[in-house]
């Protein structure tokens, strides 16, 4: 859903609104806009992702998947499908998510090897996404209203914000600081600090581009500094506003993937 993290210059869109964004000083507003830019670009979208997970010993694992997303409303509920293609023994594994910001997400799982569709109970969103350093929440998006945001400074290029969780019980961090690009509104760096005051986790955007007028992240890396592990996510085949039919975001697509929309071209 890096796809989703790609930005739409939202509802108002257009370069003209950039001027307003630039001058914004209200932290919550910045985060709200960044969230839209990152996770709600276009009305729908597809992307192919490849995750390279590197452990502390330098051993690597690969995860490859294709994501389809359709927004039910801007900044609101979203339908998502994640189709795994590699490693080859997990090929055909599918996640289906109905994301409901401010509420529990609905999640389903299809495992072809066990020929099994299973509903996953919405639990903690800060668990690993298929063994990577990304959390489920990093992929699907964190509810902007879950944290209190403060604007620390505005540099030439970035809004620098610090955020503190409203419910510290539900997360492993004490706070995080983000650098949000003033022009694209994409967060380009996020640093997480634990209760001991140590920086233990960070997200960096390594490559961005503009696709169909939307600024998008092509490469991002999350590092777990405490464990010495990291995951690089590369995005390709990004397209927006495909007109994905609502019907494909259903249980039927788990066993019978909508191949038409999964193809690159």
């Amino acid at each position, binding site marked *: 859903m890096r796809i989703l993290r790609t930005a739409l210059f939202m509802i108002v869109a257009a370069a003209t609104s950039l001027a307003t964004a630039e001058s914004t000083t209200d932290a919550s507003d910045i985060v709200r806009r960044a969230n839209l830019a990152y996770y709600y670009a276009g009305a729908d979208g597809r992307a192919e992702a490849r995750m390279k997970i590197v452990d502390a010993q330098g051993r690597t694992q690969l995860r490859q998947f294709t994501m389809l997303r359709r927004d039910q409303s801007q900044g609101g509920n979203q339908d998502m499908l994640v189709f795994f293609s590699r490693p080859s023994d997990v090929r055909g594994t599918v996640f289906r998510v109905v994301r409901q910001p401010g509420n529990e997400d609905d999640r389903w799982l299809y495992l072809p090897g066990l020929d099994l569709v299973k509903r996953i109970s919405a639990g903690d969103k800060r*668990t690993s996404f298929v063994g990577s350093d990304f959390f489920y929440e990093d992929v699907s998006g964190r509810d902007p209203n879950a944290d209190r945001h403060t604007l620390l400074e505005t540099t030439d290029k970035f809004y620098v914000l610090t955020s503190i969780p409203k419910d510290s019980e539900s997360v492993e961090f004490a706070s995080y600081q983000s650098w949000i690009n003033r022009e694209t509104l994409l967060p380009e760096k996020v640093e997480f600090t634990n209760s*001991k005051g140590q920086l233990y986790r960070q997200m960096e955007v390594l490559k961005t581009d503009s696709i169909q007028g939307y600024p998008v992240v092509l490469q991002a890396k999350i590092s777990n500094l405490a464990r010495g592990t990291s995951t690089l996510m590369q995005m390709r085949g990004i397209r927006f506003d495909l007109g994905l039919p609502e019907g494909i975001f259903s249980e039927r697509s788990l066993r019978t993937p909508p191949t038409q929309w999964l193809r690159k071209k």
Partner: protein
Amino acid sequence: METNQLQAAEAKTIKHRVVELALNRPKTVYAVILLMVMVCTAMMPLLTIDTDPENMLSIDDPARVFHNQVKREFAMHDMVVVGAVSNTDQGIYNPKSLQALAKLSSQIQNLDGVISTDQMALNTVDNISQESSGTIRFQWLMKHAPTTQQQSDTVRNAVSRLPLLQNTLVSDDGRAAAIYVPVESKEYSYQLAEQIRMMIPKLYSSDEYHITGLPVAEDQFGVEMFVQMGIAAPMAGLAIFLLMWLFFRSIPLVIGPMIVAMATVLIVMGLLIGMGFTVHIMSSMIAIFLMPIAVVDSTHILSEFADRYKPGDDAKAVITKVVEHLFTPMLYTSITSAVGFFSLMLTPIPPVKIFGAFIGFGIFLAFLLTIFFIPAYISRMKPESLASMQAAIHRMEGEGRLNRWLPILGRLSIRGRKFVLLCFSGLLAVSIVGVTKIEINDNPVNWFKGDHEIRIADRVLNEHFAGTYDAWLVLKTSEQAGKEQFLQKAKPIIEHAKNKGIDLTPLLLTSGLLTDEQQTDFESWLQVLSTNIDDQLFDADDDEALWLEELLNFTDQVREQRRLFLKPDVLQWMTGLQNYLIESGLVGKVNALPDVVKTVNRELLSGNESDFKLPANANGVAQALLQYQSSHRPQDLWHFVTPDYRSSLMWLQLTSGDNQHMSQVIALVDSYIRQHPLPAGLEQNWAGKAYLNVIWQDAMVSGMLDSLLSSFAVVFLMMVVLFRSLKYGILAMLPLTFTITFIYGLIGWVGKDYDMPIAVLSALTLGLSVDFAIHFLERFREFHKQFGSVTEALQAMYEEPGRAITRNAIVIAAGFTPLLLAPLVPYITVGVFLASIMAASALTTLMLLPALLAFGQKEKAQKVRI
């Protein structure tokens, strides 16, 4: 003959020069010794203690190298284990106990030096469960400690469904729970354990808390060893001092040997530390071993001096005579003792090598210090103190017990020689039987006394849990198919593509992107290859894509085939072994990959026990594990399998760290593999601390035997050369042969495990027993020459020479009684056996040798009479 005389003359001049130098320039002698002591003592603050039993194996020992490789590959950390035991009826699953446990666990996670993300406790691990609606749920097992009994029971039910946690995190009987604290470095573990101990009272829990784990034991041992060295060694010195005073009744006279002993110990320890060696349990005993040896030579000199000196004599003249007289026997006893210890360098155990080398060196040093320092020291004593010492000794000797008992012992041994020989032969036979009963067994936790808190914790936790001792059975793929074979098989695809005008070969030349290590690693090469194909595929046109996909599919297939530990039949084999080991009763628990797969599979399917099984195919296994990794702790999977799924670790929990226990488990696994061969392409190997213990103890036993046999041979040769007689050479070897057999026979009969301190005692026995024999035989030959009769010569032996030997034996034996008060078992062992060794070798020398000498004599005499 001529050369012999020449050598004798030469030796005389050396002796002369030494004594002359000592007597004429005592201040120079003092200054040199003082300087050496000061320089070496100055290096002592550099001391580093080493208590890691792993160091019993050299750093490049294959077993140790493999163990550390396994630790790295499977991210196995050293663990401090904290256990809580509830003695209430409801056990540990009650709100109060669980709250205390959770609180402690969180506090421990915040300590520096703890790898908090890998900590294992009820509040840090994940649960996989079913929700009523048939959904699967991944969540913290106990994010918040329960406030009601009902919530506590929910935790109990959850744990009982998770085989990896049951009996590891909470005991089967539900009475005890554990926190496994992974430490960044073993060095902090004592400090951490102390910090955790401080936290426990503040929990106000009615549960008992125990702290154990090998790193804590090791670190704690180091701390106590340090205390031991600071207290027990000086105490032993003091005891020796008091005994010597009892014998010689002259404080100034006794101070001399004490200075020699102190200087020897300080110089040797200072050098050891200064040369950068760590102080291991073995080297911490150097002081204790060196002190008696250093005192022995001086005691011989003092004993003879006290006998020869009459008031009014010229002390210098007497001491010159005494040193000249004792020079050769002392030199030989020093060489033979040193040989015994140097032979330890033949063992493959580094701490024992260092121990042997430095004691060997210390013995020579003590010899040099004795012959330089003692004459200088005595010659500078006031005539009055010499006179009063003389008076005291004569007073004591007149009524001394030694004086009364030794001649009686002599008469008994000579007259009852047949009986003595019979007794000794009988004892020897019994001892040999005892030697065959020796059990080789060591366990670093047993280095603490039975009532030490570490031992108690060890006992309690092993009573409740599956075991706190780890052995790792590692299954690895033996590399078969490599790059060449892959390229061979990929050829048809490449050629087909070529015919269509598509060149795939550049893709296969990916080596340029790899580091040297990766190039040789087929797995990395395959990974890079598939990534590159995938990249190229992205921009390829339809024609090219067709062939790229063909090649990619082939690569994927090959990679799937290589992931052996996703195959159900391999996992099934592991399950079989797990069950076999548990049924044997020798293994508390086996944690392995099949448990992970089955648990996830059960929850994915229905949550019912009937679904606790392996998926039917490898893809099912891979997909179940992908779900396992979507938890808070995805890294836990890599303790059981490597990310390439080509090696897997089975973690065996044992309730004891005895190497015999471990050896039985190894034999068990071997027998299972004989009956059920390993799945194709796999080989097995062992790692883990319990296994390393077996390795170094095997090395110790065979090493000690080599060292004992070789030093025995060398000492025998030296004896033949010293006495220029085969007969005397053999005689000289008898006391030590008997003593060693007797001591090890005793160990066998008593049932004391043969451990490291016991093993090195053979060297000490060899050195000290032969000392007594040399002095005895050397003096006997002199008396024999003097009196012309064996019986008379033997009787004379029970005067001054007998007293010197007995005094030495008593000083050393009793001098080490403070060791019996030590908190650490190896020191106690050394104390007890030193006393036995001294008693046995003194008695053997004073009874067996005379009996044998007299035995031969009588027959000759009778023949002459006839």
